């Protein structure tokens, strides 16, 4: 997969709009199928701990991923399988992390959505919501000190995370430093089960921007074409030196908070409203209508994706589990300062 899909995504340097859209769509497709595979494995008891899907949020997530270059910075959250793939994460890294493989980037130490490679500007989330934003700031800040220009850093979060002190401090910090931060808020109307009227009281989360002195962008988060355009614009503004950009996307997650949750708290009315439309379907319709591709091609991609995912899972299932005796059981890089090992 890392080959097939990233082929057409040569480090953000994709020629035409249609190329970029097709690339994004393929990441969405791969992400949707990958998520579904994780859900299946979860139900089969093959995954330890929780499984968190991005179902319904792939368009937004892919849009941010495809607009980042390899030299940019990315801090995705739990529903960003699409953006992760678009940023260059090989499928096998996702599978290895979920399965706790010793060969994965997290070596079985952390799991599921907690994965990344900081040395590649791909920051592995800690669970505490809002906490990654200031870390993105730090990377951007350091790069500026080093004279590196033209890069951006994107951090994703849900609308619930905007209630955290960490979100506030970090967005303000980015604004004061005028950092090229793109903050993408997926407003999926619920944080876990909590509806927006128990989470915030502003008419529109995009209204927050003026209070920080940053630019805001609103978008229908399940409208693929709109996401591509609006997120693209936000990334371009940040890259051009206009400081932090706040993107607020309205949408619905078409799944539970995690696979243990049936999302019974989402009212049917809402599911049946425009908010509840599946971005995958809308994206497909858009591409077909624009004649960027055809149904046969999509079917080919789909089966390619399924095969690659199955292959990755099969491979990882043969891989060694982490061995506690091979662990050095220290949290310090400076081994001679570590203590408490046996």
């Amino acid at each position, binding site marked *: 997969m890392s080959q097939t899909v990233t082929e057409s995504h040569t480090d953000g340097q994709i020629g035409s709009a249609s190329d970029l859209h097709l690339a994004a769509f393929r990441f969405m497709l791969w992400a949707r199928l990958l998520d579904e595979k994780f859900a299946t494995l979860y139900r089969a008891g093959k995954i330890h701990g929780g499984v968190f899907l991005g179902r319904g949020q792939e368009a937004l997530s892919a849009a941010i991923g495809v607009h980042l270059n390899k030299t940019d910075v990315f801090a995705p959250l739990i529903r960003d399988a699409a953006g992760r793939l678009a940023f260059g994460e090989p499928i096998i890294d996702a599978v290895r992390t979920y399965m706790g493989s010793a060969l994965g980037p997290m070596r079985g*130490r952390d799991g599921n959505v907690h994965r990344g490679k900081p040395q590649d500007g791909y920051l592995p989330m800690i669970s505490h919501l809002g906490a990654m934003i200031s870390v993105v700031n730090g990377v951007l800040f350091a790069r500026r000190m080093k004279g590196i220009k033209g890069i951006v850093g994107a951090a994703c979060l849900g609308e619930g995370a905007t209630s955290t002190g960490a979100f506030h401090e970090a967005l303000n910090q980015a604004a004061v430093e005028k950092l090229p931060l793109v903050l993408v808020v997926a407003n999926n109307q619920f944080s876990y089960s909590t509806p927006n009227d128990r989470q915030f009281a502003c008419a529109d989360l995009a209204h927050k921007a003026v209070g920080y002195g940053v630019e805001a962008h609103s978008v229908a988060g399940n409208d693929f074409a709109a996401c591509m355009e609006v997120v693209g614009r936000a990334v371009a503004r940040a890259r051009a030196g206009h400081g932090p950009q706040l993107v607020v996307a309205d949408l619905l997650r078409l799944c539970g908070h995690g696979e243990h949750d049936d999302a019974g708290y989402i009212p049917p009315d809402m599911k049946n409203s425009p908010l509840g439309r599946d971005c995958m379907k809308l994206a497909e319709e858009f591409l077909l209508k624009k004649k960027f591709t055809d149904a046969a091609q999509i079917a080919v991609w789909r089966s390619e994706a399924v095969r690659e995912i199955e292959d990755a899972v099969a491979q990882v299932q043969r891989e060694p589990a982490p061995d506690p005796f091979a662990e050095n059981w*220290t949290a310090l890089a400076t081994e001679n300062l570590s203590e408490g090992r046996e």
Partner: protein
Amino acid sequence: MSITYLEAIREAQAHALRDDPRVFIYGQDVGAFGGAFKATKNLQKEFPGRVLDSPISEDAMVGLAVGAAIEGMRPIIEMQFADFSTVGFNQIVNQASTLFWRTNVPCPITVRLPFGGTSGSGPFHSQCIEAIYAHYPGLVVLTPATVEDAYSMLLGAVAVNDPVIFCEHKFLYYHLKAEKLPSEALPIGKARIAREGRDLTIVTYSAMVHEALVAATELATEGWEIEVVDLRSIKPLDTDTVMASVARTGRLLCVGEAWPWGGVTAEVIARVTSEGYGLLDAPPQRLNAKDTPVPYHPNLWAAHRPTSRSVAAAARNLLRT
């Protein structure tokens, strides 16, 4: 009929809400949804207006509780996971814990921390940070190990006129069952002899009590009689019960699921050796988790925390000393 540790926590809250109009519950998803672990299931329906969803704002959640306590209420705050209480840390350790001492106005809040390791939960959903809170003056820190204690100690926590950090172990939520809820209980602050013995005392708390009991059963087949002390409350810490047990057995093994530096095991050993040195026939020993974050993969997790097997091994070593 049987009732789980988690249900006991729900029942205690229902009981508290029923008996005392000053009680309310505030936390993420505790309302209609009944909480991430369902510890408040149906409570919002039963007690309208008194079980409220909060924004994802741990600092403000605790701050609100302190204000309400000043006004005479007895709020219960549910943290979704103990690990997230670090974001509300300041309000706990600087606002709540100092209020009474500064002003003579009590601060009866209960902060429920679903804590401790479960398989596959990883570094940010598994932490045992009870010692962090116990270090600060002005807080009571409780760690029930049984269904009965989960129930009666939570009722006790709500009744106490001080901020209580209520550490409920997620590993015990569904596993642990009792026939019925207790009508009587040891007072808050008293430890319990979970198993009697005469060869060695294991002092521990929360989920590790059960690992210790399994170890004790195993060691019994080898002819050893192990006494297990369940601290129940780590602050205050019932030094008397611990000392009395050590006086009987002459050997002390402290077991904790938390990280090794400092914490309950160090505190217990420091107290026993400084106040009851002559009681010991062998050096006191301790067994903690390893000094790294809590790993995700079950293989690593099982090696990271003490288990009945490693407890038994440590006890055997100590018995041979």
